């Protein structure tokens, strides 16, 4: 089945130690999104790619960066994680940037900070 896969499912890192989360997709969608979801809250969009065109949300901290080396893969890099960055990180894809295109989500990576 075509899908969005996030690795790892659980990630533990130390305060200030860089960490990278991975997302891959077999849907061949040209848009990929990264969301941060804290406990009992709605997902919050961090940034997204339309092909290789990167779009950052205005309130996304500089500590968060992303790379998309090809259509299938997208990475979320947290340069110096703080305790407030502990959350579930969700990757999603959509087929095109027209309004109304549904987004397809992976199962997420739960990040813990020690």
């Amino acid at each position, binding site marked *: 089945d075509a899908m*969005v896969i*996030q690795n790892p499912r659980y990630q533990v890192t130390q305060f200030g130690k860089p960490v990278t989360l991975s997302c891959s997709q077999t849907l061949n969608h040209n*848009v990929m999104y990264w969301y941060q979801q804290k406990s*009992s*809250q*709605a*997902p919050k*969009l961090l940034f*997204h790619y*339309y092909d290789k065109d990167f*779009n950052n949300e205005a309130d996304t901290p500089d500590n968060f960066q992303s790379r998309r080396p090809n259509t299938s893969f997208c990475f979320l890099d947290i340069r110096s994680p703080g305790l407030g960055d502990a959350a579930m990180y*969700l990757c*999603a894809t*959509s087929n*095109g*940037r*027209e*309004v*109304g*295109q*549904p*987004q*397809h*989500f*992976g*199962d*997420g990576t*739960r990040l813990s900070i020690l």
Partner: protein
Amino acid sequence: AQSVTQPDIHITVSEGASLELRCNYSYGATPYLFWYVQSPGQGLQLLLKYFSGDTLVQGIKGFEAEFKRSQSSFNLRKPSVHWSDAAEYFCAVGYISGGYNKLIFGAGTRLAVHP
């Protein structure tokens, strides 16, 4: 500005009972509306979507939703709830920002199902 309100943070129903989850939206144009479900520790799964046409939309897992423009609502319903429906439900509005397709989510409703 667009926004989504889910007035109920928690709802508990008995297995077999009917369910209605409320969603109100604010959007200046024709809304593109979605309901997603999130089981514990999982990502979001699309239940159904509304763009235009018939205001009663059928989705997966026996869910349906009704769009009411006059009330700015898009409530999710299921006639008979199963224990496996216990999860968090998010209503969302699709919109264009900077030429790109985005979603804004409500805060979610957590559904508990009693046996």
